[in-house]
């Protein structure tokens, strides 16, 4: 075999080299993320179908209006914005870790991976608080199924005029659907964040142990980085679908 592999700009599908110019591991990570994108979008689109089907729907500015340690205050969307910032920043620290890896800068990789892990854990803690808070208001999977409940039980979730005009059946059905989707989708996303944090810890241990230094490159940081950015990407869509639209 000759050294023609390093020649510049041969035909993409001329043979003898990958037309993608990407390693097997990175291609497979991309294709896994592509399939995961379809899983998440199946969830989000069925949420959209159900919402289009419903006569009334909970209002995000009412459902998500609390902030830890500031009970009683009406702060719509503030807490979830904080969560979004935490996740965006942890994505930034991850891309800085990947960048440090390109320069074979072991200390840089360790530093930025640590910040990424802290960001991921902070996000999960915020989500745990939000779930607990909603649960205290009666929300969970399969909640609000009793159509004979007084309208008071829905007062945290709807605009007052919508609440007054809706029938008990509409309130029960839409609130039940809303929270089934909310806990399933944010839960599925949270499971991705959790496994991302675990992957980050694993590659941090490998980096500290010098595994990648001996290998001569930090491609594993890039692959886990792709996964981590994808988790951030999904949150961008979850944020839009649940909190904005």
């Amino acid at each position, binding site marked *: 075999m000759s050294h023609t592999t390093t020649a510049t700009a041969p035909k993409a599908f001329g043979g003898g080299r990958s037309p993608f110019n990407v*390693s097997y591991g990175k291609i497979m990570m991309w294709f896994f993320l592509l399939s995961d994108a379809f899983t998440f979008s199946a969830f989000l689109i069925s949420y959209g179908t159900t919402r*289009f089907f419903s006569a009334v729907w909970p209002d995000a500015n009412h459902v998500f209006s609390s902030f830890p340690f500031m009970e009683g205050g009406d702060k719509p969307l503030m807490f979830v914005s904080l969560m979004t910032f935490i996740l965006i920043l942890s994505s*930034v620290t991850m891309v800085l870790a990947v960048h440090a890896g390109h320069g074979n800068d072991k200390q840089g990789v360790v530093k930025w991976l640590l910040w990424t892990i802290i960001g991921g854990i902070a996000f999960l803690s915020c989500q745990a608080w939000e779930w607990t808070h909603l649960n205290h208001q009666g929300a969970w999977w399969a909640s609000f199924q009793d159509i004979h409940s007084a309208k008071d039980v829905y007062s945290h979730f709807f605009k007052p005029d919508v609440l007054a005009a809706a029938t008990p059946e509409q309130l029960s059905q839409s609130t039940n659907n809303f929270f089934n989707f909310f806990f399933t989708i944010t839960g599925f996303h949270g499971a991705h964040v959790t496994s991302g944090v675990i992957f980050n810890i694993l590659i941090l241990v490998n980096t500290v142990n010098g595994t990648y230094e001996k290998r001569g490159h930090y491609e594993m940081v890039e692959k886990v*980085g792709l996964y981590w950015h994808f988790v951030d990407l999904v949150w961008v869509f979850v944020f839009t679908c649940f909190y904005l639209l």
Partner: protein
Amino acid sequence: MSHSPNNDNIQHLYEGDQSKLYSGVLAHHHDPKSAESKAQVAKIWKITLILSIITIAEVIGGLYLSAYLSKIIINSIFLILTILKSAYIVSVFMHLGDEVKWFRFCVLIPLTLFIWFIIAFLYDGSEWKMFNDTNPARFDYHQTK
């Protein structure tokens, strides 16, 4: 195998660590103190700033815009901003913008399925709502009391 990470003689890698072959590792390596490296870090922070500004704009829009604009216009703005944010994340943070053309196509072309996926299922939802609103058998559901 002992070799320097910047060794351009990749012959021996066919038997060993395959990830070095096409990962661009050989081309990517740079000095962290070089001007090029610093320019990349500056770009990352610039994108961070853009993503933050878009998110703040979305939250402000979610809180106050509904008093001034119709729902369909607000939602269109949100969707455009969301796609803009995701394009920045995929192209810069995930470095898809730096990959070769054929690889970009392989990732992006399957996403066109979403055009059918979203339209078909949202249409289905609104069709069922119309059925509920107009079918006499479902009339009680909407007209209690």
